[in-house]
């Protein structure tokens, strides 16, 4: 299906030529390129872009789970060698003999070779005037050379989500309260501008206020996953999306944003049956506390509750029986430095049964990285804002990934981009 779409698109003529070249060369040479993802790799992040674009061009690709840090095996073509050379990606040509040895090793260990067939069509939910540098995912996609389409409320309301396979959310506040920044930044020009634009957009789309619009957008995102979409969210979007979905019939916004106080009985009225990851959450009732609920373990913006950063540890899964979580945790490091975000982590006490924990902080009451199925789709939440800017504050300079090209924290983001490309959705144990 993916290839037919590509071929039918006349604007991508050059791309078709590239695809043809890759396919022909692959057949003719019967050679493979191993893209190692252990410490031998000079540029882990670009390696994902190389693989994604190879799949997009129709080349065969496999993800070698747990083999040398989650390596990729690609068709050996001049174009891929060229791209690797340009980006400084380490590749190791392999003849058929070596490939056979590799497959034998994989067969006998907790490893698996997962074919990657379909490059997912990627949408990133972000305001139209936003630069890519304040969202770790767009930073990673830009750096890796993976194309994406920015979409926002207007496109979601129009039903455009159905055009995409994979959707990313970052620091959007789906409760429509602009992350409660009103408390500290109400007089800041950027905040006034943000408030005006969002309020105007809500009115334009026929909603009484921002919370009304955002709840509807959250609902459409829920439906997107239910229908088979892949959702990846980070930072505050994880928490507020869940609150907006569960609070679809409850006033959970403070009066500074919609003119009416939050429903004092909101906790009881929340509908957690509809959410992806959390249940029985307590909402923060005070308009003066910069926190949404007790989902986040770190509460970075509440001085008295703020918890220090530690490290988080990735879980090991059975590559043969649990390939999806295995794909999501492929990394050359098992322990990674934690990083703050509007929502940094997820308290274990509010996780729904059946949620797969991908990474936690040893001994802490929270987890960092979680995943689950919902309807025909899947969702993944990764707490924090930017893996290489642990104390990120508004106005900080953007992260330049050419200085962090081996970032293990960013690799987790890119795992999420690639895993929908897997040939079939494998069964969980």
């Amino acid at each position: 299906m993916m290839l037919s779409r590509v071929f039918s698109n006349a604007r991508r003529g050059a791309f078709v030529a590239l695809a043809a070249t890759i396919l022909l060369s692959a057949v003719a040479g019967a050679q493979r390129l191993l893209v190692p993802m252990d410490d031998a790799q000079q540029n882990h992040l670009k390696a994902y872009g190389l693989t994604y674009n190879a799949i997009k061009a129709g080349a065969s690709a496999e993800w070698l789970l747990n083999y040398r840090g989650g390596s990729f095996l690609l068709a050996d073509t001049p174009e891929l060698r060229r791209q690797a050379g340009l980006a400084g990606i380490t590749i190791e040509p392999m003849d058929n003999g070596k490939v056979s040895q590799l497959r034998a090793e994989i067969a006998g260990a907790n490893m698996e070779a997962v074919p990657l067939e379909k490059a997912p069509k990627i949408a990133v939910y972000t305001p139209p005037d936003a630069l890519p540098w304040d969202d770790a995912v767009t930073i990673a996609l830009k750096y890796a050379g993976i194309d994406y389409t920015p979409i926002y409320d207007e496109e979601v309301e129009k039903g455009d989500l159905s055009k995409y396979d994979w959707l990313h959310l970052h620091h959007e506040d789906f409760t429509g309260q602009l992350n409660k920044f009103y408390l500290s930044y109400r007089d800041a020009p950027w905040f006034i501008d943000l408030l005006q634009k969002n309020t105007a957009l809500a009115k334009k789309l026929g909603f009484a206020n921002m919370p009304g619009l955002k709840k509807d957008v959250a609902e459409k995102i829920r439906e997107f996953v239910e229908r088979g979409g892949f959702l990846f969210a980070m930072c505050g979007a994880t928490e507020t999306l869940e609150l907006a979905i569960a609070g679809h019939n409850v006033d959970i916004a403070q009066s500074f944003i919609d003119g009416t106080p939050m429903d004092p009985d909101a906790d009881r009225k929340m509908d957690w049956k509809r959410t992806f990851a959390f249940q029985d959450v307590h909402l923060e009732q005070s308009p003066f506390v910069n926190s949404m609920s007790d989902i986040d373990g770190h509460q970075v913006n509440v001085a008295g509750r703020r918890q220090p950063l530690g490290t988080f540890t990735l879980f090991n899964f059975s590559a043969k029986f649990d390939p999806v979580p295995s794909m999501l945790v492929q990394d050359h490091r098992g322990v990674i430095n934690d990083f703050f975000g509007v929502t940094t982590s997820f308290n274990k006490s509010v996780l729904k049964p059946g949620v797969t924990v991908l990474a936690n902080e040893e001994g802490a009451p929270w987890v960092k990285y979680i995943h689950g199925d919902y309807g025909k789709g899947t969702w993944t939440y990764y707490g924090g804002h930017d893996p290489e800017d642990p104390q990120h504050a508004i106005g900080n300079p953007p992260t330049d990934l050419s200085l962090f090209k081996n970032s293990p924290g960013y690799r987790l983001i890119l795992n999420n981009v690639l895993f929908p490309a897997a040939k079939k959705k494998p069964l969980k144990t």
Partner: protein
Amino acid sequence: MLGIRIRSAWLIGAIGLCVARVAPAVAQAPADTMSFYRALDLEASGKYKDAVPLFREALHTSAAVNALLGLERVYAELGWSDSLVAPVEALIAANPREETYRTVQLRTLEALGRDADVRHAVDVWVHDIPGSVSPYREYARILLQKNRATAADSVLAKAKEVLGTTKDLQLEVAQARAAQGDWVESAKAWRQALLTADYLEQAAAYALAPTPSSSRAQVREVFLALPVEVPSRRALADLEATWGSSADGWNALKDLPPDSASAEAWSEFAQRAEAEDRWTIAREALESALRYKHTSDIAIRAGTAAMNGGDPAAALRLAPLSDAHGDSALIAKSYLPLHARALAALGRPSEAERLVAAYDRFLTPAAHNNLTRTIAWGWVRTGDMTRARAALSATGAEGDSSDAAGWLALYEGNLKSARGLLRGGTESSPELALALALVARIKADSAPEIGKAFLALAKGDSVGAASQFVGAAAKQPTARSLLLSTAAQIDASGGRDVEAVVLWQRILAGEKDSPEAPQAELEWARLLRRKKDLAGASSHLEHMILTYPQSALVPQARRELELVKSSIPPVL
């Protein structure tokens, strides 16, 4: 850890306060304070438990305030701060107007984590001393120390409501606003605070340093607004330096009224600019200082800044010999080196020679030789190599082995001598690096065409130099690519892009295996990127990376390629 640091900080503050208060009392040392001094001795020798009863005894004497501070310290050391609560309450009951008691009470309760009691103590203080700003100030400070900026803001708002103003709380307002990211309001408060406490300049700059770039223009406006006040302008200059813009720092200071405070600010600012080799700004600041306060020292510094900034004529004007009022020793020591350099740079070495001769008897041999080398350099600038050689010979053996001698040899095309002298020299500059690279690549001992090219460069004739290097390339096959690359670099830095591109093309076509080929392609790509030809730049960068994968310049080329493709944030 942070809590420990804060505690140490206020303990140091408390000790300082105690010493300041004790100092005048020591001379009198009335009998009833003997227990206090014995307690101090015991504390100083680390016998905290023994000091406790003596400090407590002294609470009933005229040294009660100092004794309470002492007791606070030793209890903190012993971890017994809760024992201080009752005595301090008794002292407050006896003397409710003593602010130190109240402050110690708040600190103690805060250290014990009794937040509700802190709030209650503040309420009682406000009730007992209505109209006093102190309870609000102390409470706001405690909250700010605990990073509770929003709560501190509420306290300050309450103070404004009750007192009608926060003019005596500007420091706390400034800190609260900065902690909340309200940079413009913080800047306004800092400006007010600096009116009565100019020693807070650095504190203001430190607090506002994290201001995001999007708010900096507004912060500048606050500090630059009329009327002009020296402390706020100095704070802004410090802030600009922190933000990495000395030029903007000078904008903050340049329109100060000419008085002694401004002259001091200008001179201090220039000192920083001098240390950073920002000579144009240093010169402007020193010229401003000179207009108010004309001293030899400032004049020489201004002249040196002008000279280092490439304006030798201004150097002579800013530091005229007449400033020395005929003090020959001062002229010889301070003025001559500057004047000789300026005259040599202006191509007036004979004047420099006469000047040095006039004050020769005041010069040490080493100073004399230095000046002679400077003069020799002046002759080089005029192209008179004979007189340059003669001047250098006059300095004896040392002159013959100097950097200047190495350069002279190079200008004369004597590569054999130049090779030895330049390698052993003490100078370090891009020109020297280029000269060393060339003499290492060329096997011949003599190459007059290379000498002419370097001489043209030394005379500031970049067009002639580039042309000479191209000419030399034809005669020096082993260094052809380096000579062409050098000529291209000179052309590019002089804005002659077309000529530079022709040379880069020549290198890539005829010298594609030379080390200069990847460099030529990288420079070409950079030029195209500057001209917004992103496709052209991208094409050259890709070609360079793929053709010369082993080149040390590949990481630079990859970064350029990222910028061309907007894969990474733009460099601001």
